[in-house]
């Protein structure tokens, strides 16, 4: 079953609601053992990168790593995406999963507002099933102050004081910096795509 990982950081209601709306049964858990039965995993996240330290407690991070190694599809949202990287300058003492090698860093302080809050455009879309039906220039809702750099795993970029990784993917491991559950039709399409490719 689709498993939403609850690590007691922020509000899962909106993500779960959007998945229900798409007709999916959702299992919400904070138990590492549950990852053994997960057919796909969603890691939401708002707030501080340091909260991901809770994934290390109780063995969740290790269980997620093993599930990923078995080929279980994974979608990280916002801080959930950032956690896929080596770490974040927001919490230098807490490593991320390290699935992607780069480090998440803060937007520069150069006059524009930080956090980056609002609807911004998705650019440079890679050809991947996760983005089926999404067009370059479509909008998504962002709210964050830290972001991942553009790299080989980047499948969408967004422009705010330079391009950053709005979404990333390698094999069946994906992350989105924006909130698909709050990004109208575009966001729902991306969640639907994730459910579809999780099913195959």
């Amino acid at each position, binding site marked *: 079953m689709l498993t939403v990982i609850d690590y007691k950081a*922020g*509000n899962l*209601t909106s993500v779960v609601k*959007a998945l229900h709306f798409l007709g999916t049964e959702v299992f919400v858990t904070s138990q590492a053992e549950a990852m053994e039965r997960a057919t796909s995993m969603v890691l939401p996240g708002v707030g501080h990168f340091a909260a991901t330290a809770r994934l290390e407690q109780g063995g969740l991070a290790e269980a997620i790593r093993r599930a990923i190694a078995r080929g279980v599809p994974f979608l990280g949202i916002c801080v959930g995406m950032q956690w896929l990287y080596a770490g974040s300058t927001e919490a230098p003492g807490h490593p991320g999963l390290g699935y992607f090698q780069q480090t998440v860093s803060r937007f520069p302080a150069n006059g524009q507002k930080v956090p980056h809050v*609002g*609807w911004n455009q998705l650019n440079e879309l890679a050809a991947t099933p996760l983005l089926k039906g999404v067009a370059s220039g479509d909008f998504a809702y962002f709210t964050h102050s830290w972001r991942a750099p553009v790299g080989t795993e980047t499948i969408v970029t967004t422009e705010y004081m330079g391009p950053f990784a709005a979404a990333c993917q390698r094999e069946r491991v994906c992350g989105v910096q924006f909130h698909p559950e709050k990004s109208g039709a575009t966001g729902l399409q991306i969640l639907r795509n994730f459910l579809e490719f999780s099913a195959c």
Partner: protein
Amino acid sequence: MLTRRVIACLDVRNGRVVKGVQFVNLIDAGDPAELAHRHAEDGADEIVLLDITATHEGRATLLETVRRAAQQLFIPFTVGGGIRTLEDAAAVFDAGADKVSLNSAALQNPELITMIGAEYGAQAVVVAIDARRNVGAADPVRDARVFTHGGRRDAGRTVIEWARDAEQHGAGEILLTSMDADGTRAGFDCELTAAVSRAVQIPVIASGGAGSVQHFAEVFTAGCADAALAASIFHFGVSSARVLKEQLAAQKIPVRIPC
């Protein structure tokens, strides 16, 4: 490009949307869930629901309203009115809100901002400030004062100082309502909005005074607003947020279109 947000606000009392009686009534009192959904369909970038009942008995009604409104709403959804404790906020989040808007409770206890932010993230805490220019002061804008109780009571602080303090306490956004402009349909207080927007790093949502497309254009340029809110965008001759944004786009203001 990051766009300027057009936010539809629903004033809710006893589970029904209400609006100022001085306006032409294209939409009358309605069902909040239905209207929230319609605004989203019509291109609003975000929905704010302000409960003006906020009595103890009204809380259960509000939560049910929020639950129904949030059910099929896939854009950001803020709920305010009568949120005084972390438990109040938690109930509203559980019902489906993405952000809470705090007003007098935050003034009385700024730690409430920090506490809710620690649980739900700073992005989930909007601090609403009701402001009036200080007409007697040398600089009525810089010295604009914070008011409570629907603009009747001076809270004894300047707007800019409180906005900065709220930011320090971890507010994610400021919802700035000009009590001078509110209800006039004569335009937002662009000078005040710009002064607050420049004083903080977090987004500032302008509120109060919307009467035309041009007013939105002004508050997004001269007013440096990151977002602007209207109690009803139907009240002044545009049929929807989409039409409003199309007209703003024609003036080179970045907005989410198509939406």
